[in-house]
């Protein structure tokens, strides 16, 4: 049972390393896909100063686009046969990397694409990509009377001079900050003491690079005041449209009297993003200062019942590859927390909620919990507020 759970958990965790992320890297790493090797896709004018017309003509990607036959799409195997199995159709499509295939194959495909051949011997597929295309030689222009403005002409370098001291026309790289208490709640446990728990995520930074702060934990509300919590400081980088790769440090600490003074420091690497289906996913792997390895997955989904009333199923699970007595954890899947919370967004930022949470610890972790007089299988009614600013 334990092993099955462990296996399932690992499966979930790594299936969350989205194919999307990997696929995009494939695309980027493909030879022939880099800007250097693909002048046509370069920013227009990027090379203008060094490029003569002849040179441009000589460049493969700059050839005049020859209108492709109208039935290009039909010409693609797999488009014709409605019943073609997916994979087969994919394989047959030139240049269409699935992202799951090896990069080498993808690259071969790309190079094999007729449109990418220097001489354009075969009919190019109609591809739509940014860039400059020379259509025909320059033609003489006869401006209408009074429309000749050549006296106003300035050279590239003169325009550069003109622009240099001026402020930026748009400010598109500002830094912003975000603070979210996803959970800030009172837990009325059916077994054991009631508790207060939190889950905080915050960031500061720009569009691609951010500094993240995360903290979660729980504090018993009885005489012992037992509790645990963690604090993470991470650097995050947007590596794919929906995915942030995060790395940094985490410190895990005990609160209260009985486990006082125990802290542990970890290196963290994780992902945060949105998986197909609009699931918020946050897998992370921790390596402690004692060589222990563990992993955690948080996943949640927002179901809009109305424009203000939102039901959020939430899953959190931890898996340990080496136990840690001081934190009362064994090996394997150590803990899962399955919650269902119903929040009302008074504004988008402020949303009180109620819900249930089923916290379960497994195997050795469960035994340790029971030894310490806690429950290994507890259902809590929760009430709290989700708040961001």
């Amino acid at each position, binding site marked *: 049972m334990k092993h099955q759970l462990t296996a399932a958990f690992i499966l979930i965790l790594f299936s969350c390393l989205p194919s*999307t992320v990997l*696929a*995009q890297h494939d*695309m980027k790493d493909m030879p022939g896909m880099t800007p250097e090797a693909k002048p046509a896709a370069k920013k*227009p*004018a990027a090379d203008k100063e060094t490029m*003569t017309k002849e040179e441009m003509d000589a460049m493969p990607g700059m050839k005049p686009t020859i209108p*492709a036959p109208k039935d*290009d*799409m039909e010409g693609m195997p797999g*488009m*014709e046969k409605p*019943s*073609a199995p*997916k994979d087969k*159709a*994919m394989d047959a499509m030139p240049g*269409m*990397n*699935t*992202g799951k295939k090896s990069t080498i194959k993808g690259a071969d495909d790309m190079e094999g694409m007729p449109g990418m051949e220097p001489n354009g011997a075969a009919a190019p597929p*109609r*591809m*739509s990509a*940014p860039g400059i*295309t*020379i*259509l*025909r030689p*320059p033609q003489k222009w006869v*401006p209408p009377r009074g429309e000749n*403005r*050549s006296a106003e*002409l*300035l*050279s*590239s370098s003169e*325009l550069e001079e*003109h*622009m240099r001291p*001026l402020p*930026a*026309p*748009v*400010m*598109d790289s500002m830094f*912003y900050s*975000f603070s979210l208490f996803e959970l800030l709640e009172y837990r009325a446990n059916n077994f054991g003491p009631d508790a207060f728990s939190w889950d905080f995520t915050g960031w500061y930074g720009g*569009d691609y690079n951010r500094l993240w702060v995360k903290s979660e934990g729980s504090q018993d509300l009885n005489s012992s005041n037992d509790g645990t919590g963690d604090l993470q400081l991470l650097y995050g980088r947007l*590596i794919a*449209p*929906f995915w942030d790769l995060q790395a940094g440090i985490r410190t895990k600490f005990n609160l209260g009297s009985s486990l006082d003074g125990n802290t542990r420091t970890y290196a963290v690497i994780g992902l945060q993003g949105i998986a*197909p*289906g*609009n699931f918020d996913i946050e897998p992370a792997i921790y390596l402690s200062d004692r060589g222990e390895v563990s992993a955690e997955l948080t996943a949640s989904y927002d179901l*809009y*019942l*109305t*424009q203000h009333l939102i039901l959020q199923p939430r899953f959190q699970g931890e898996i340990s590859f080496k136990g840690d007595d001081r934190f009362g954890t064994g090996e394997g899947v150590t803990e899962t927390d399955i919650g269902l919370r119903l929040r009302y967004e008074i504004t*988008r930022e402020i949303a009180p909620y109620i819900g249930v949470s089923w916290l379960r610890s497994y195997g050795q972790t469960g035994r340790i919990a029971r030894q310490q007089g806690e429950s290994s299988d507890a259902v809590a009614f929760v009430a709290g507020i989700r708040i961001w600013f």
Partner: protein
Amino acid sequence: MNPPTHLHTRRNFLRDTTAVGLLAGIESMIPAYARSTRGGSGPIDLTIDKYDLDIGGRRVSAIAVNGTVPGPLVRLREGQEAVIRVTNRMKDEDASIHWHGLLLPFQMDGVPGLSYPGIRPGETFTYRFPVRQSGTYWYHSHTAMQEQLGVYGPIIIDPADSDPVRYDREYVVILADWLSGDPEAMVAKLKKQSSYSNYQRQTLGDFIGDATKDGLGATARDRWEWAKMRMDPTDIADITGHHFTYLMNGLAPDSNWIGIFKPGERVRLRFINAAAATFFDVRIPGLRMTVVQADGQNVKPVTVDEFRIGIAETYDVIVQPIENRAYTLFAETMDRSGFACGTLAPKLGMNAPLPERRKRPVRTMADMGMGDMAGMAGMAGMAGMAGMAGMAGMAGMAGMAGMKGGSNASMPGMKMSGGDAPLMHGPDQHGPGNSMVAMSPQNRLGHPGTGLEGMPWRVLVYNDLQSLVANYDKRPPEREIELHATGNMERYIWGFDGKKYSEAKEPIEFYYGERLRFTWVNDTMMEHPLHLHGMFMELDNGHGIHNPRKHTVILKPGEKISLNITVDAPGLWAFHCHVLYHMDMGMFRVVSVVPRP
């Protein structure tokens, strides 16, 4: 005979905040022929300052030109030299005025960072340029978020010769959106939650409703298609009526702007969309509108019942109300979350009912760049499309094998123009700054746009627009420059080819005197009104030498279009999305017109 320059300034009204909003309305109610023309062709003075105004019944802090929102009408005459002195009376921030759609030396274009540094506090900048065109235009600030805060106003340039458009009376109808709160704060909210302002999302109730109508399986599949792409089909506007009050000539719907007419008169309405982030669908129930001008350029008259006006576009229409009754000017937002409205009536105090509001539309697969596959009932075949959102390239294409049988004919509103065969998006997915690509982008100039499909009346489409006079430059284009409008909705990043302006500051070079084909592909699911400063673009909608000349063109989701340009304006020009929030987030490029190498 009349002095060509004309400007309405009402300094004594400046502090009268309740009258401010009305000003534009009353001004516009004065027929053009009855307006004062005193003042001659001397310089025009505009002053930018902060004011507390009443908008939509609330006292708000605005930045206004000569104390009013919108600012005063700037009226010029073709052939004169315009001299406009703009003073920044604000103490703590720079200002600017850009003359939208005007052909002038780039130093006079009013874009801080390209034309000049902007106008510092307390300073006056004198714009001086020959007026080389006629028509309806507008002006607005090009500094930070000032346009959203009230710095905009109309421009009318009377033609040097007789006007081919015959009319008895004219009104400027300037549409706008007023944000409750600070626009910078709204940007910060959108960076944190891009759906922040959308209160029209699909809910469980909608699901049950759709499942009852279309069947559980079909509805579940539809929802899954979108969820897999991590896109929201109700994402029509970034900022909605939840945060915006929509204004007609500075007046909220309750304040009801009124234009007076005598039954039988030909009334020219000069519509200007000066909104920061709102598309309007304009109609006058009971009256047909004859479009005579688009973006200041005369077009062959086309009579419609409704038209969509993109941000920064202008349309002049002629209406001829015969009956002695009131009519409602109704400008509903594209996402249907609100409207601006006013009344045309024979006398003050008359009102017409408001038309019924329409339901918020949803995006279709055509908007996602699925081309011909769009709108088909059985979307099950597209099961593989999820890959697209994740940039897995064409992972989903195989699924479309089953879509081959789809026929355009069965799809109302999907009439294609231009005869462009579907094409494929290239392999470049534009990086993490872009969250989808239009896999099969196509010309949708015959499509009225999201929310206007299947109307029981005639809706203007871009294919209806034809230049009244033939364009003089008959040369075929010699170079084509293709740009893709891109964005990452989740992070609220906007740009071209996956890059924000700050990541691609190098100017795009146009060569003086060349005939250029400018091609755009929309890899986002939003409309982008793209605006090129300094030069008109001839939208290639299949009318050849009568292709309409425009300064701003809506690029629909899933669309690929081309515009031909005679590069005749030397200097540095801005090219950007006119959704202010998209421009400011990086959907902006510099075009430099330089000598041919």
